């Protein structure tokens, strides 16, 4: 999937991919749709990437004052990711 005009391109750091999600490191080169099949969190990132600021995504200003960062709750798991985009 590609980011079009005005659309955020979703990416996952390799550290997050391997350490937090337990996926292989070479997954960093896979398309987001392939990764989304392996992780509900990545699927949520893909599906919500255009919804920054929507209810349920709390800003984490104290964590990353120089980058807009927000938490993202994934239904049912109480699992939270932190996502950021360059400001």
């Amino acid at each position, binding site marked *: 999937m590609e980011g079009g005009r005005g659309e955020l391109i979703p990416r996952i750091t390799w550290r997050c991919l391997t350490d937090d999600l337990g996926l292989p490191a070479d997954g960093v080169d896979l398309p987001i749709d392939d990764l989304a099949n392996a992780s509900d969190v990545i699927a949520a990132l893909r599906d919500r990437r255009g919804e*920054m600021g929507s209810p349920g995504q709390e800003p984490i200003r104290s964590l990353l004052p120089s980058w807009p960062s927000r938490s993202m709750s994934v239904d049912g798991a109480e699992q939270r990711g932190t996502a950021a985009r360059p400001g």
Partner: protein
Amino acid sequence: MIWLLAVGYHREGHIDDAYAYFARLKAAGRLLPDREDMLAFVRSQAPTLARSLLNDVPALAATAREHPGVIHSGTIGGRIRARVVCEADPAMLTVAISQRLLPGEMPVPADWLVRVAAAFLPDTPPERLSVAFDLAGHELQPDEIAFCDFVG
């Protein structure tokens, strides 16, 4: 671009709470994307660049040749800024290519730079690309490198 930086379970007050985990990662300098992440992003954009080289660059070069002396600007694959001008009698095409990859401050990979230049000057073998020091008499931007050749 939006990055997924870390994932954890939210357990309010627990030592392994997600927010505490995120803060520890930040303190250790392991939260933000690193060089490997940016290189992976560059690799992911290569197909987009290839399409743009085939479609956008010839169109930009043709426009420049139709309007001699006028500098035309474009962004190749949404990542590399380029300016091109064609001077008349004899016809010489000069292309100035930004060495900074958009978005951010990453340098354009060297092989991408040559491919962009070769796309603007398809009849010039890469070993015969001449470096230009201005763009039809106009100064180059600090991040630009320019190439030129006569065109038929």
